[in-house]
């Protein structure tokens, strides 16, 4: 879906950006112009971003902690 129609930015682009380390709307705007024209996509973009960051967080928490334990050993 086109989250930001003015700049042609899709939900996939936003998720990919989050995977690449983007964590804020400010960064999304700087990188892709999301929300910089009419502004009507801001809340939708924020939703997509925070939802994806939350799922990522959850996934990391579910990962086995073995590698870290090895570090401490």
């Amino acid at each position: 879906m086109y989250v930001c129609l003015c700049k042609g930015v899709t939900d996939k682009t936003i998720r990919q950006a989050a995977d690449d380390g983007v964590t804020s709307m400010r960064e999304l705007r700087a990188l892709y112009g999301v929300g910089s024209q009419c502004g009507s996509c801001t809340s939708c973009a924020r939703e997509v971003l925070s939802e994806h960051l939350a799922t990522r967080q959850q996934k990391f928490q579910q990962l086995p902690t073995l590698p870290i334990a090895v570090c401490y050993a």
Partner: protein
Amino acid sequence: MSALLTGSAPVLAELNRVLTRKLTAINQYFLHARMYRNFGFEALNKHAYKASIYEMKHADALIERILLLKGLPNLQELGKLFIGEEPEEMLQLDAKVQLADIQVIRSAIGVCEQAQDYVSRELLSEILEQQEDYLDWLQTQLDLLKQLGQSNYLQSKIHQE
């Protein structure tokens, strides 16, 4: 006499709320229609185009009703468009928007009823009927898509029905 034909504030607010959704839907369905056409799915183009025209007719009726009730139709505000990238997503997003429209129209009907504005209620009821028809068509497409598989379904949409 003229006081009788002044709409109550809640009714005018509801009519404008529905109007904003109509103005938004006109654009969403129209862009989807021409995207379908550009992809080569003429049958889908036809339906989405017609849906867009219906939204415009509803917007027209709402504008006239609001003016009659001495309100100011708000043609400035526009909601966010939900534009898909491929046919399945486009159908899903239209269904989502149409369902939300229907819920807004239903609650607006309740407000008109309470304000004893039976003419506005009647107008919204007529709009609601058409909206339900289109939602039904959209949901049927999504069901067909699931049953036939995407490529079989889309193949049936290449030529005009």
